[in-house]
């Protein structure tokens, strides 16, 4: 099992992209994406979600699910 996985991984890294391959491009891509994910979500987006939620609960027929 382990042997097969290791072999597959080596094979895959020669052949092309693998989501979990620890190659340079894959890890830089993940690192880049993560750096954006870790930025605080702007307040106006959080406020928007809050407002949509409140509007739904306080009013419309939509609110009753």
């Amino acid at each position: 099992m382990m042997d097969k996985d290791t072999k597959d991984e080596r094979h895959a890294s020669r052949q092309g992209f693998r989501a979990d391959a620890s190659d340079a491009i894959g890890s830089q891509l993940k690192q880049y994406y993560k750096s954006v994910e870790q930025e605080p979500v702007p307040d106006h987006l959080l406020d928007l979600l809050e407002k949509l939620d409140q509007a739904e609960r306080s009013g419309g027929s939509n609110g009753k699910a």
Partner: protein
Amino acid sequence: MARLETGIDQAANVAGAFSFKREMLAALPSLRAFAVSLSRRHDRADDLVQETVMKAWSKQESFQPGTNMRAWLFTILRNEFYSQMRRKGRELPDPDGLFADNLASHPEQYGKMDLADFKSALDQLPDDQREAIVLIGASGFAYEEAAAIAGVAVGTIKSRVNRARVKLQELLTVSGESDYGPDGTSAPLVNRAFPGR
């Protein structure tokens, strides 16, 4: 087909809008990272996310409880991005000042410089390739999910990812050589782009 799921729908709806909102909140950071990757700019990305939140909210009835909320949101955002592109035409983006600022605030971390190089290489990919490699390599979707989000066959996603990867490798190598020459600064980048194994 929908009738079969009535029971499940009702059970999920007891939790109602609260869990919908909570799941959306949980997906926001990743959705936003996808939007920045796709649009290449923070300001445009935040517009996209805002548009996506409003669209998703207005059609939350069409979301199937128990299915992947992230994939659903990513699909909405992706469609919004391409329909904006069709409406506005393609503008060449200015450099993403916000990303650069964020990097500049941590100059002590050498790796951040690599990250700026990486972003500018990623930004040069064709949209469809950039989208594919980000969905698979960073957002954590399976090929089947990424194919559904992009509305293409699994094989198409695979070949886009491969082309993206080849192109990135080229771009990172070229920029490493021409910008800095083969010195101590670029050597780590070149070495990582070509792991000599």
